[in-house]
């Protein structure tokens, strides 16, 4: 392990050194150390999440992302059963996230969530918050029961929730890269449609842009990202990466484009700092800490600092602005 025994700055320095030599062509993918793969997976997933998250936050749909993060369980179980029963005839095979499962499961879970939530809300006339909450908790409960029946063990919990970033390997890097590319591609291609449907659904209707289709596409992207990131970083981290960076970016800017870029930047920054910190703790204090947890903590502190120090919307800026205006109001000269 090339990162053994390095402290915070050492890790960052070493990472950028390797990264530069990788860009320069002196280093191939096979030579990457596990720490570099970790950083890359986290950065890729972080950028994917920030792209989706910006739209989700704007559309007030983050709770649906939360639903998705629960319903992927049932999606994965159903997809696993379908694949194993109909294609491989090997039901005893343990769960493993590969490309086929990822695709199928994300289709199933996003479709189930959106369809059922809509069904409860529109057809059964249950108020919106209650139908969101009811649908995902129940699907999650059914998912747990199914998993218990298929794997004889109800404690699949900790892996799904926290992920296992210390066990990532090159396959995860491929999945993360695939997710990143498809998310970037979809966002670039459909940027205008997303923009219009997020801000003005009536105008979207007039422009013949299907609101429903883009809501579904966004949820599909969300569920694919959540599932792809599941093994590496876990559900919580994905959710945190979906919500926190866009909210941080929102403090600095009002423009969508700059908000998305800033969100990507903060989530990448958070990932690098978190990995560096976890190595620092391990080598300096001998404390093994969950890297996924550390990423959330770092993102939270970046957000917290932004709340305090952001130029216009920050708490301090507002305080000073108020104080100055009070003073000028008192002495108009």
């Amino acid at each position, binding site marked *: 392990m090339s990162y053994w025994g390095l402290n915070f700055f050492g890790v960052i320095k070493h990472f950028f050194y390797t990264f530069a030599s990788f860009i320069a062509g002196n280093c191939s993918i096979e030579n990457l150390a596990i720490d570099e793969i970790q950083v890359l997976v986290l950065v890729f997933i972080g950028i994917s999440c920030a792209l989706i998250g910006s739209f989700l*936050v704007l559309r*007030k*749909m*983050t*709770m649906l*992302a*939360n639903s998705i993060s*629960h319903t992927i369980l049932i999606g994965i179980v159903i997809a696993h059963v379908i694949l194993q029963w109909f294609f491989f005839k090997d039901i005893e095979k343990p769960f493993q996230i590969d490309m086929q499962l990822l695709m199928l499961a994300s289709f199933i879970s996003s479709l189930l969530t959106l369809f059922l939530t809509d069904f*409860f809300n529109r*057809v*059964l*006339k*249950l*108020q919106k*918050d*209650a139908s*969101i*909450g*009811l649908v995902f*908790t*129940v699907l*999650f*409960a*059914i998912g*747990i*029961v199914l998993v*218990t*029946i298929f794997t*004889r063990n*109800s*404690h699949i*919990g*900790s892996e799904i*929730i*926290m992920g296992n970033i210390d066990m990532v390997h090159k396959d995860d890097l491929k999945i993360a890269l695939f997710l990143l590319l498809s998310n970037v591609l979809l966002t670039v291609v459909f940027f205008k449609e997303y923009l219009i449907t997020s801000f003005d659904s009536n105008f979207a209707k007039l422009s013949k842009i299907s609101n429903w289709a883009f809501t579904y596409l966004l949820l599909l992207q969300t569920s694919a990202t959540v599932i792809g990131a599941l093994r590496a970083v*876990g559900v*919580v*981290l994905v*959710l*945190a990466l*979906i*919500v*926190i960076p866009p*909210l941080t970016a929102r*403090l600095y800017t009002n423009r969508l484009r700059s908000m998305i870029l800033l969100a990507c930047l903060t989530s990448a920054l958070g990932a690098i700092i978190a990995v560096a910190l976890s190595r620092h703790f391990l080598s300096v204090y001998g*404390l*093994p*800490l*969950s890297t*996924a*947890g*550390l*990423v*959330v*903590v770092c*993102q*939270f502190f970046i957000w917290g600092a932004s*709340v305090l120090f952001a130029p216009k*919307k920050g*708490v301090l800026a507002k305080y000073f602005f108020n104080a100055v205006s009070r003073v000028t109001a008192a002495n108009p000269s």
Partner: protein
Amino acid sequence: MNKLIPFWEFFTDPVLQASTISSMLMCLASSIMAVIVFIKRRSLIGEALSHATYPGIALSVLMCAGLFTKAPGVFPFVLLIGALISSLLGMRLITFMEEKLSVKSDSALCFVLSTFLGFGVFFASRLQFSHPIWFQKIQMFLYGQAATMLSIHVILYAILTLIIALFVVFLFYQIQAIGFDKMYTKVLGLRVNLIESLTLILIVIAVVIGIRSVGVVLMSGMLIAPAAAARQLTNNLSKMFLFSGLFGVISGFLGNYFSVNLSIYLMQVRPLWRVSLPTGPMILIVAACITFLCLILAPNRGLVTRLYRRQKFQLKVLRENILKEMYKTGSGQSFIQLGRRHRIFAPILLIVVCLMRLQGWISKENKLYILSDKGTKKACRIIRLHRLWEVYLYTHLGYLAENVHKSAEEMEHIITPNLEKKLSQLLKDPKLDPHDQIIPAGDG
């Protein structure tokens, strides 16, 4: 254990007793608070608050692992307090984000739940290698383990549930007033802020009781399902509390019952599987089934009732249209002619015709349907309503004569006898409609 356990043994058997009673208490507490969050339309707050307990649990376990290893009796209390504090912090953060930073409510909830769970994971990972047994205990809270509850839990939860029930009983009118009109309540001089913060603390308490048996993740479901079911059955807030509490208790019991007995049953059928179904998800699935049934079958608001009402109205409109048409043609018509003229699917037409014959509006002669006296009277009345409405639109609302027909086509099925009388008084019992057609007299 190969026989199914009868339900009374869940209360007498020393092993099952504690877990059954405490799950029922927990469900009671959460279903009472569920009503309050439901009428405030903030059902998802349970989701955020239950996740927000996790870092508190992890930290207090961390403390226990360091300090109280000799006194395991203190453990539940320390956990409870830790969970309470961190959940309240989560609550504060949500209100801060919504009020001071004007973050949308859904983002604030999602932010708090993911951040707090992330912190919890962070603290828990500290324990993972140093104290693996305690780490197991933290993991238990994610999914809940009703089966490991002791009698001390029962006593603790009984007290907390009692506090919640007393709160609702004594402050019922205040809760009702705040739930329906906050500003008015403030004007009345009731202490809205105090009651609201008390409510939040009690929601947190209900969550903290719940996570032990159904787990962090499913707790939010128990804060929604019973209230949603109760809402379908009644409009009255006090009845809603009662129904919700009842559903909560029932699902608490049945969840335990099924998780034990289904596991035994599966053991008999598939001995190799060795499945033991978790209690928390079973409780929630039972609660959700109750809610689903209520949503579909509830007497006034259920899906079936609403569909039935709509279908009934559509059939009425169809019958009246056929009647009107037959009256205008004057001669008898065969079944096939009717079907062609109205473009109706034959089985439906059969039902409609049978209904009309039962009502005595039409009779059948030589395979032709003709109007009876009663039917003629009815048809006259429909035409009268149609033309009266046309006159009203024309004279009083300034419609053009060529535009009034379409609205009258709809209104003729809706106008009640009372409204007809008022209309005819207002229009001074007109004899001709805007198209110069005769309006039949009121008594046919």
